[in-house]
């Protein structure tokens, strides 16, 4: 028996929105400790890793580990039928998981809707992401990161991110010209969500596809702050932390031809 009830149903809608552009089919791996999802995009350039802790649900019950193979597009269609204020309950039979039951409850008008999503058999190897000590870790307002990606897309398809001790710089160069955005660390005690911090081991300069980065910024509604972790010649980690868990994106850098 698997059952997970989430009081803020809107969170699940947002989470799905932040994953579905990147992958079409994925396994939700359910265990005693929570729900996780890990999938690489079709072009093998980016990876999304989602983790929701059991404590974030009330109640959460999962008797044994199993996977829910889901077509995210179909799930998204069903999730659109849930109101933003709805309490969402996910249910499945862990021994013969051929469908996922979704229950949407609206406490104010006692409306209850129930949907059943057919599951799929998705063969997915579990990917091992190497643990790394990153050269640079930047925390910044997620809306600011979203804006930078959106703005620089005007200029180019890729962005170079340079991090030094007292500055993070985003640079784009394209046919029509160039553009760059520089941010300095700030800390506002009364508004921690607006602060920018840089932890630096050594300076880094890496280039990434803006198409993917702006795809990642679909996670913006999930968290006020976004964390960027960079190391020379390593994939970029973009993380949005939530009360209930996190969503992480990994993106392979663009590398010189020679």
């Amino acid at each position, binding site marked *: 028996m698997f059952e997970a009830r989430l009081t803020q149903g809107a969170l699940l809608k947002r989470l799905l929105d932040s994953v579905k552009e990147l992958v079409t089919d994925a396994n939700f791996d359910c265990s005693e400790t929570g729900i996780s999802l890990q999938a*690489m995009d079709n*072009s*093998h*350039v*980016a*990876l999304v890793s989602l983790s929701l802790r059991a404590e974030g649900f009330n109640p959460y019950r999962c008797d*044994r*580990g199993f996977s829910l193979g889901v077509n995210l597009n179909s799930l998204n269609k069903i999730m659109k039928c849930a109101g933003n204020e709805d309490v969402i309950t996910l249910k499945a039979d*862990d*021994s*013969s998981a*051929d469908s996922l039951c979704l229950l949407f409850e609206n406490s104010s008008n006692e409306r209850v809707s129930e949907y059943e999503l057919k599951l*799929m*058999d998705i*063969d997915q*190897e*579990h*990917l*091992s*992401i*190497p643990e790394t000590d990153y050269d640079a870790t930047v925390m910044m307002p997620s809306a600011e990161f979203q804006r930078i990606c959106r703005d620089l897309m005007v200029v180019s398809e*890729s962005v*170079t991110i340079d991090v030094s001790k007292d500055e993070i710089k985003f640079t784009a*160069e394209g046919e029509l010209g160039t553009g760059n955005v520089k941010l300095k660390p700030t800390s506002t005690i009364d508004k921690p969500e607006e602060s920018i911090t840089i932890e630096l081991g050594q300076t880094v300069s890496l*280039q990434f*596809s803006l198409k993917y980065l702006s795809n990642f910024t679909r996670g913006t509604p999930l968290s006020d702050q976004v964390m960027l972790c960079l190391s020379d010649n*390593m*994939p970029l980690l973009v993380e949005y932390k939530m009360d209930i868990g996190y969503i992480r994106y*990994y*993106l*392979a*850098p*663009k*590398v*010189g*031809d*020679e």
Partner: protein
Amino acid sequence: MSKRKDVHDDSSQDSNKKQKITSSKQAFLTSWIKQPSQPSSENVITKFTGKMNEEMKKLLQIELETMDNEWLKALVNEIQKPYFVELKKFLATEKSNNKKLFPPDLQIYSWSRYTPPSIVKVVILGQDPYHNDRQAHGLCFSVPHNVPPPPSLLNIYKGLKNDISTFQVPKHGCLVNWAKSGVLLLNTSLTVRAHEPASHSGKGWEKFTDAVIQYLNERKSGLVFMLWGSHAIKKGKAINKTKHLVLEAVHPSPLSAHHGFLDCHHWSKANKYLKDHGKEEIEWNCLVENKNVPIPSNSDLSNNEKID
């Protein structure tokens, strides 16, 4: 515009950078993130056995160690059901009573290793493993290379020759190459007591192999099921005929084969269906080459003793 560019190019640093940008290529994440093509069987086993107690693990040792990982993943819940546990206990009792059982332990699940769910295209259902010495090796209708092909198999060859004239009747009765090409050769009962036909029927294997068929029926589409004889037809009753092709005929046994089996043309029908559904056809002629194909075994298991 071009003038401005020139100005830029004067600064060597900028021009370097520019060159770097124009010539940069998107790297693949796979260079950093390992995608183990074959997870070590040990890991998979521990993943499945996390919640099993020692007694259960011991009872299911053959399943955990010799079943293909894909199949094990699909059936891990099934093999923990009470009826299957009872079946395993029954088989253990048979052994402790010094009954000789076929096929050998390591080959009970050889069908799963040759034909994991991801490659299954055709399913042929048999009934009981062959009950004479050295015949059964875990694939229905098939016998190892050094054993003469039994009468039913000879009729299958005849039917195939009638159907596809280019088919070369092999001298042996080993269908491993079919199994490897995606033909799942599954018996209803997976074991039998030596020289006692159907001695293990009604002990639980039927339920288990039903689960195998049901899994394919539900989770796959566009498969071809070849059901020969009333037993197989009955067993395949639940197969969804809109999703799959179900071909029925009498059993190839010499007692019934002349009532339509020899002219059933199932093999060309199967290939046409596969082709129409965008799948690669089965090369039924693949039996004649590659003689003496060894049975794949899990690397950590080299002999029978370890299991017994």
